[in-house]
C-alpha cells in the first residue's frame, strides 16, 4: 500500500481478482455450469460481427425491392438474411441520402444492434462519445474523421428504448461494376454506426 494521501482508503481489489472471486462463488453455487463462459461469448468472437450488417447493406444497394423492405420493416428484412435475436429483435434502418447523414448513439448505456454489428467497440461505450454525439454531432464527427458538409442535415438516433439502429450508408460512386459480395467488402462498421462515410 502506498501512503499517497490522494488514494482512496478502500482501493478495490484488482478487477481480475474480483472477477475470479465472483466466478468461483457462482460456480460453487451451480450458476456457472461447465462451458458457460464460452457458450455466452463464442458466437460474438467467431460468427457475429459487422460482416453481417455489411451483407444487409450490400443487398440493399443492389436490390431496390429489398431496400424498400429494409426501410419499411427492418427487422423482417434483416431476418431474410438470417440475422436476428438478442439486441436485434426490433431494428430500425435509417438511410443516408445527399441531404441527411444519420448517426447512432446510446447516451444511457451502450445499446447496439448485436446481430448485425457484433459487440460494440469501447469508444461507443465510453462517456465522451455518449455525452458529445447528441450535443455537437457535426464537430464530433469531424474529429472522428467524418466530415459532413454544413448543408447536410445530421440526424442523431439515441437508442433509449427497444429499437436498435443501423445506418444504411450511401453507395460509393464508381462501384457500378462490383458484385454484391465485393460491395459488402466496402462496408465498414463505422459507416453503419454513422461515424464514417464510404
Amino acid at each position, binding site marked *: 500500500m502506498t501512503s499517497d494521501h490522494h488514494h482512496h482508503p478502500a482501493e478495490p481489489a484488482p478487477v481480475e481478482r474480483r472477477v475470479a472471486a465472483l466466478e468461483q462463488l457462482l460456480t460453487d453455487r451451480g450458476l456457472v455450469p461447465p462451458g458457460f463462459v464460452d457458450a455466452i461469448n463464442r458466437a460474438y468472437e467467431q460468427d457475429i460481427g459487422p460482416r453481417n450488417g455489411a451483407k444487409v447493406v450490400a443487398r440493399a444497394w443492389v436490390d431496390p425491392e429489398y431496400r424498400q423492405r429494409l426501410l419499411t420493416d427492418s427487422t423482417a428484412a434483416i431476418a431474410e438474411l438470417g440475422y436476428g435475436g438478442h439486441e436485434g429483435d426490433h431494428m430500425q434502418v435509417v438511410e443516408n441520402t445527399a441531404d441527411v447523414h444519420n448517426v447512432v448513439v446510446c447516451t444511457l448505456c451502450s445499446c447496439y444492434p448485436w446481430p448485425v454489428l457484433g459487440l460494440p467497440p469501447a469508444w461507443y461505450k465510453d462517456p465522451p462519445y455518449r*455525452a458529445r454525439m447528441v450535443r455537437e454531432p457535426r464537430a464530433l464527427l469531424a474529429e472522428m474523421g467524418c466530415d459532413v458538409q454544413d448543408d447536410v*442535415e445530421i440526424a442523431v438516433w439515441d437508442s433509449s428504448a427497444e429499437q436498435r439502429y443501423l445506418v444504411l450508408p450511401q453507395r460509393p460512386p464508381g462501384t457500378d461494376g462490383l458484385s454484391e459480395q465485393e460491395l459488402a467488402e466496402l462496408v465498414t462498421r463505422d459507416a453503419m454506426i454513422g461515424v464514417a462515410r464510404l
Partner: protein
Amino acid sequence: MERVHDLGGRAGFGAVEVEADEPVFHDPWERTARALVFAAMGNHPNPTTSAFRHAIERMDPEHYLTSSYYEHWLTAAASLAVESGAVEPEELEQRAGGPFPLARPPAEPQVEGTGAQRFAVGDRVRVVATPHPGHSRCPDYVRGRIGTVVRVDDSFSLPDIEAHSLRRVVEGTYGVRFTARELWDDADGRAAVHADLWDSYLEPA
C-alpha cells in the same frame, strides 16, 4: 451526482479515443465478466435487462466514471448476485483479497405508468420535466423539451417499474424527433436528435 450514467449533452468530456483493430475482449476477465451477468441473472427473481441496467446505474458515481464497461458488468453481476442471496459481500471480498465495490441499494419504484398509447405520428409532445428516483430510460437532456412523434413503435413494459418489481405496465413507445436547437440554444441549426420514449414520459404539447 444523480444519474451519472445519463451522459447525453454533459459537458467536460474530451476526445473519443478509437482503438485500431480493437479485439472483442481485451483481456480474459472481460469475457468472464460478461458471462457472469447472465449467470447472476439465472438466480435473480427479476432477471430483466432493466434490473441489470439499474444495477449499473446504482454504482458509486466516481466508480462508474473511472471504470471500464466490463467492470460495470462485473459490479452489476456481483450486486445482483448479492441481492438475490446467491453470495455474501464478505465472501466476495475475502476471495478477491480486498474491497469489492457493489452498487448502492435500489430505490423504491415511484411511478404508476400510463399503460396507454396516447400519441400518433405527427403529434407534438413535451417530455415530462421532472425525473423520479430509480431507473428510467428517459434521458435528462430531453426533459421539458418539445418534439414530434416520428414513429409509433410496439408497446413494451415500462422499465421504470420493471427494474424494481415484478409488476409490468405495458405501454406505447415512440420515436420522437427534437431539433437540436430545441434542446440547446446554441446547437447546430441543421441537426436533429431522436430519442425513443415510453408513453409515460410524454404529455401533449
